C-alpha cells in the first residue's frame, strides 16, 4: 500500500551563516501493507512526526522515494499533493484540529465540501456516518462544547467521511485519559476490520502500539520492525 525507499531527511538549524544540518531520518526503507494497522513507536524527538509529515506530503524529503498504491507521491508539487490527500488520506491529530467555527456535523462535512459534493449528498453521508460512530447526539455542538473523546471521534469521522484507503494518526490518544483512549483504539480497530482501512498510528506509548498489526520502532532516525503482533 505504502512503500518507503531509502528515505533521508535533515533539518537546518541555527542562525543564518552558521547553520548546521541535523539528520532526522536516515535511509528508511519499509512498507505499510494494505488493510493493516501499523504503528510507529519511538521516543520524543526521534523523528516519528517528521516521517508522517513526509508520507502525507506536508514536507518534501531530502532524498528517497515514497509510493502510495503504486503512485509515486514524493515527486508531487503542492497542488498535486493536496489533491492526492483529499482523495486518499484521512488525518487524525493529537489535538484534534477541528474548526472552532463549525459544528461537529459541519466539521465532518468539510472534506466533502472541499471535494465539491452537493449539499444533499453531503448531508446524507455525514448523517449516516455520525450515527455509526455514535455522534448523532452531539452533532450540533461546537468543538468547545465537546469532551476530548468526543472531539477525537469527530476528527476520526472527518478522516473517514471521504472513504480514504489510508488514515494517518499522530498520537491520536495523546490527549485522552486511558478509558477514552481505549474507546478510540477500539473504534480504530473496528473501522479497520469493517471498512478495511489502513491505519498508520504514531505513538510513544507501548500499550497503543500493542493494538497494531505491525510495529516499527524509530530510534536515532533509523526504523526497525518490531514484528507483527496481535492484540487480544
Amino acid at each position, binding site marked *: 500500500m505504502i512503500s518507503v525507499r531509502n528515505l533521508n531527511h535533515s533539518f537546518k538549524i541555527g542562525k543564518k551563516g552558521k547553520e548546521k544540518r541535523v539528520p532526522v531520518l536516515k535511509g528508511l526503507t519499509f512498507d505499510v501493507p494494505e488493510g493493516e494497522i501499523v504503528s510507529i513507536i519511538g521516543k520524543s524527538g526521534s523523528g516519528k512526526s517528521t516521517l508522517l509529515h513526509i508520507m502525507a506530503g506536508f514536507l518534501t524529503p531530502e532524498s528517497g522515494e515514497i509510493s502510495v498504491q503504486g503512485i509515486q507521491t514524493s515527486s508531487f508539487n503542492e497542488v498535486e499533493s493536496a489533491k492526492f490527500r483529499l482523495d486518499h488520506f484521512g488525518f487524525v491529530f493529537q489535538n484534534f484540529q477541528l474548526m472552532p467555527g463549525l459544528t461537529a456535523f459541519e466539521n465532518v462535512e*468539510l472534506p466533502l465540501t472541499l471535494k465539491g459534493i452537493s449539499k444533499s449528498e453531503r448531508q446524507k453521508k455525514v448523517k449516516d456516518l455520525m450515527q455509526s460512530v455514535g455522534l448523532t447526539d452531539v452533532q450540533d455542538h461546537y468543538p468547545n462544547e465537546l469532551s476530548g473523546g468526543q472531539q477525537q471521534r469527530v476528527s476520526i469521522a472527518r478522516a473517514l467521511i471521504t472513504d480514504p484507503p489510508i488514515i494517518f494518526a499522530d498520537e491520536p490518544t495523546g490527549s485522552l485519559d486511558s478509558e477514552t483512549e481505549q474507546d478510540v483504539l477500539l473504534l480504530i480497530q473496528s473501522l479497520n476490520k469493517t471498512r478495511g482501512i489502513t491505519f498508520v498510528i504514531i505513538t510513544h506509548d507501548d500499550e497503543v502500539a500493542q493494538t497494531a498489526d505491525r510495529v516499527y520502532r524509530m530510534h536515532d532516525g533509523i526504523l526497525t520492525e518490531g514484528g507483527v503482533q496481535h492484540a487480544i
Partner: protein
Amino acid sequence: MQFRDQISFVGQHIKKNKMRVFMTVLAATMGTAFLIVLASVGFGLHETIRGEVLSNRLVTQIEVFSSEMHEEKVAELKKRDHVKAVVFRQNIGTEQQSSIGNFTGNNPLIVTDFIEEEKANFELQEGRLPEKANEVIVGSNFAEYLMNQQDENKDGEFTTYDGKLIGEQFIYQVGDNEGELIEDEMMLTIVGIGKKPAKDWEQDQKIYADASIIPELEKIYYTHVDKPADDHSDAQQLFYGNVNVYADKLENVKAISTALKDDGYSVYSISDELDQLDVFFLALKAGLVFVGTIAILISSIGIFNTMTMAVTERTREIGVMKAIGADPKLIQRLFLMESAWIGIVGTVLAVVISYGVSIVSNYVLPIIVTAALGEEDFGDMTVTFSVIPWQLVVIASTISIGVAMISGWRPARKATKIDVINALRQEL
C-alpha cells in the same frame, strides 16, 4: 468546492467578525462615496454649462462662410444628408435708413427665402409673409429702433415709434459706397411681424424682404455707384450673403460640419464649441476621479489590515484545510472573495449614499447660493451641482472593487503560503 459553498464559507467568516468587517466596509464606503460625489460635481458643472450653451442658440445651426455664395451653392447644400434647411440671407453692406414720419432708424434689411426660413423655425407673431416685391416683415423690436430725434421724453431719451405696424408703409433708403444716403427712396409695406426671439436679451429690429426686391435696390444703388468690374471685389457690391445650414438633429451637426470643412467651407457650429467644452470637462472629471481615487486608496489600507489579521487569526484553520487537501488556489480565492465582498458592499452603499447626497445638494445648494448672491444673479440659469451618470458609477465601482481586491491580494497570497506543519503546531 462548489461556488455556493465558497460563498457561505466566506459569509460565515464575515459574520464571525462583524464589527471589524463593518468598520472596513465603512471606510471603503466613505472613500468610494467621496470619489463619486466629487466627480459628480464635474459632471454637474459640465451639464450646466452645456445646457447654457445649447439653450442660448439654435443648436442645429451651422454657419457657413464662403467668399462667394450664390444660389447654386445653396442648392447644392440643400441636397446634403440630414440638412433640414439652408437659409441664404443677403445683407446690405452699406448705410441704410428706414423712416415713418419723424421716426428714423438704421434697421438692417435682409433678403431671404421665407420657405427655408420657416423650415428653420422662423415664425410670425402677426400678419403674413410678403407676396410682392415691396412687402416686408419686420422683427419684433423694429419699432423700438425708430426714433424721433426732435422729441425727448422725461428721461432725456428720444421717443420711439409706437404706432401700428401691420399695413404701414415706410421709406427705405440705402447709402452709396461712401456712406452717404442715396436720395432715391423705396416705399416698403409691413405685412407681418416676426416672433420675439427666445432669449430676453436678443433683439430683432431687422427688415426681412423677399429676393424679388433685389433688382429695384440694385438699380438704385448702381445708378450712384460703379458696378464692380469683376465679381471678386466685394467692396462695391451691395449685397453679401451668409448661409446658415440647419441640421435635422443635434447629433448630425458634427457630421455635416466636418463634411463642409472637407469641401473647403469655413464653418462654425455649436459642435465646435461643445468639443472644446467636452475636452475641458473631460480633463476636469479625470482630475476629480484621480483625487477621489486617493480616498479609496486610503480606505484600502483598512482592507489590507483587516485581511492580514483575518489570515493571521485563521492560520491554524488554513493549515487544517490544507492538511485535509484543500487546493492552495481555493484558499487564495476564499480570501480574495472576502476582500471583494468588502469592496462590493462598500461600493453599493457608496452608490446609494452618493445619489442621496447628490439629490439633496441639488435641492439645497441652489437655495443657499441664491440667498447669498441675490435672486437676479442666479435667476434664469438652472444650475445642477451634482450629476451621477451610470458611467461614473461604473468607473467608481471598478476602481473601488479593483482596489479592494488588490489590497486583499497579498494577504490571500500569504494564506496560501502558510506551512501546514507550523500551522498545526499552533495552540488553540
